[in-house]
């Protein structure tokens, strides 16, 4: 077992993990962050996307031991009390989801994308979200949601 200490959504968590434990499983099973979901389990779909030290990563493709000392943000850490993150608000307003399974990952990737490019074009949004699959194929509204989020966050012209 390896001892790890990880800041998750602003709270420090410690624990012993088997080296083979995937970060997503540790977050869900030990920390209780079940908002982060496992989709494909082959690092394709992006449903398990979180921010690790500020950048988007697929938490099914990181070992929990590798997160030792890191700061992690999950979908459960982006709102402030009852105040939603603008990307969450935009996804609701633009109905950027159908079944909702891909949504936690889409939102986290969108936050990363808007951090790097506050005013992305439609093409840049589609490329920026290429690591996230929506099996309902609801991409049009997801793209609109990210455009709306850029507007809410003050990036859009």
């Amino acid at each position: 077992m390896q001892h790890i200490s990880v800041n998750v959504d602003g709270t420090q968590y410690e624990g012993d993990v088997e080296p083979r434990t995937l970060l997503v499983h540790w977050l869900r099973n030990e920390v209780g962050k079940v908002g982060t979901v496992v989709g494909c389990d082959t690092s394709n779909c992006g449903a398990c996307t979180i921010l690790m030290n500020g950048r988007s990563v697929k938490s099914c493709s990181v070992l929990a031991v590798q997160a030792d000392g890191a700061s992690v943000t999950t979908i459960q850490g982006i709102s402030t009390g009852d105040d939603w993150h603008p990307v969450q608000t935009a996804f609701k307003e633009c109905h950027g989801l159908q079944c909702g399974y891909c949504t936690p990952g889409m939102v986290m990737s969108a936050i990363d994308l808007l951090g790097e490019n506050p005013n992305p074009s439609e093409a840049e949004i589609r490329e920026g979200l290429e690591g996230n699959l929506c099996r309902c194929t609801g991409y049009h509204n997801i793209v609109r949601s990210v455009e709306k989020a850029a507007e809410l966050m003050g990036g859009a012209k």
Partner: protein
Amino acid sequence: MIPAAFDYTRATTVDEALTALASSDDAKILGGGQSLLPVLRQRLNAPELIVDCSAIDEIKGIDAGGDKVTIGAGATHHAVMNDPAVKASVELLAQATETVADPQIRHRGTLGGSLAHADPRADQPPVALALDAEFTIAGPSGKRTVPASEFFIGPFETAVGEDELLVSVAFPKYDGWGSHYEKFNRTAQAWSIVGIAAAVRMDGGKIAEARIGLTNVGGTPVRATAVEQALVGASSMAEIAAAAERASDGIEPFADEDADVEFRKHLARVLTKRAVAKAAGIE
């Protein structure tokens, strides 16, 4: 799936990594983990020991001093494609890296890890081959350098020995060259069915020198030397197209669910034409 159990050690220096590698005859190096984790999860491999090299700061830097751009093996794809010196002097590498997988994977995955993994479908090996990159490998008896032409041995096999670690890759500077990476795949984030890395030096509207690398047309990346020679002096689309016909000379592509042998040869020719035309700015 969950990987089979393994022992784990995190190295913070190259020496620590080499010591750990020497301690087991069944160790695997973990860089960014974006190739290794899927392999472990699918249990295609179950090493006894994982040596995590993602915390070795000394192999993460990018140094553009002198006549080369030397990139630490642990530099992430995201760092490589956004580095000003890479973009200015090894633009083809930045262009190919932008097409690797997706943003999340580019945040974790490393140039060195991808090159040492040597997946025949990968986008950066043909760039390293075409641009005559030089690989520095650390081992028990010190460091040695290997030219790209001797680095790729077969599918998932390179010159890096079991007890060695790839520490950096040095690219000569190609300031002023035009370049383009032409990738053919069917869906976003998918592997190349065929990919072409092209760089050209123009002189008076004509191609003076060309470097062409092909990916996924065999077990290793391929340098299209016949095309490179035929391109010298080309100044029109017709001349580029004629030279690109040589792109399938001597290649032995395989058939898989994406493409049969003839289609891959066709793609090699057509994509080479497109890549060179874009690199040269000729329409």
